[in-house]
């Protein structure tokens, strides 16, 4: 069965410090991996995706993610956090022969304090 796990319900960082939001996955075949962000009372916004190629993927708002096949992980990172990055972050995976359907993780609340 396909699944996504975000082991941390909440991540707290100080503004200016690097941040990491963790994601691990289980899927048949090569994974298609995505990160989305959700601000309060809003829908999800696409941040970045990994399909194939370079393991380090760069996305919107200075975020990047590193695909690690051996550890089945796709952690989201940013070198210097901003207070405005505070939001709910979702990792999602699509496996082989799943059409466009995504499996979402349970979400990680990121809080960046001044």
């Amino acid at each position, binding site marked *: 069965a396909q699944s996504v796990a975000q082991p941390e319900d909440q991540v707290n960082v100080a503004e200016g410090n690097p941040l990491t939001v963790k994601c691990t996955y289980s899927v048949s075949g090569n994974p*298609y991996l*995505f990160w*989305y962000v959700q601000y309060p*009372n*809003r*829908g*999800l*916004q*696409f941040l970045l*995706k990994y399909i194939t190629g370079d393991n380090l993927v760069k996305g919107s708002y200075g975020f990047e993610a590193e695909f690690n096949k051996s550890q089945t992980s796709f952690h989201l990172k940013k070198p210097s956090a901003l207070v405005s990055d505070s939001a*709910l972050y*979702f990792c999602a995976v*699509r496996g082989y022969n799943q*059409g*466009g*359907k*995504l499996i*979402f*993780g*349970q*979400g990680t*609340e990121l809080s960046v304090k001044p």
Partner: protein
Amino acid sequence: EADIYQTPRYLVIGTGKKITLECSQTMGHDKMYWYQQDPGMELHLIHYSYGVNSTEKGDLSSESTVSRIRTEHFPLTLESARPSHTSQYLCASSVGENIQYFGAGTRLSVL
């Protein structure tokens, strides 16, 4: 921002009422999806469509129904709303198997 629109944004309604949540996209995407999300929680796929006259149930069982008569329109209907239907409903669309773009959501409260 993606061109996908959901109305209403907020709906408070009494038990037993019939409701329809609207979702429209102007991007010509073939695939559309409905998710249910409790506040701050994960998303659960309840319906999806791969094109006109194509609808399938998602991973989470739902008493709602959907239709896809036109490419751009994917409404969700509850024939008789109950308090257990209180949640946020998110609509999304994608072209092929690519990125899903989300609407702002409808927050439904059934009294």
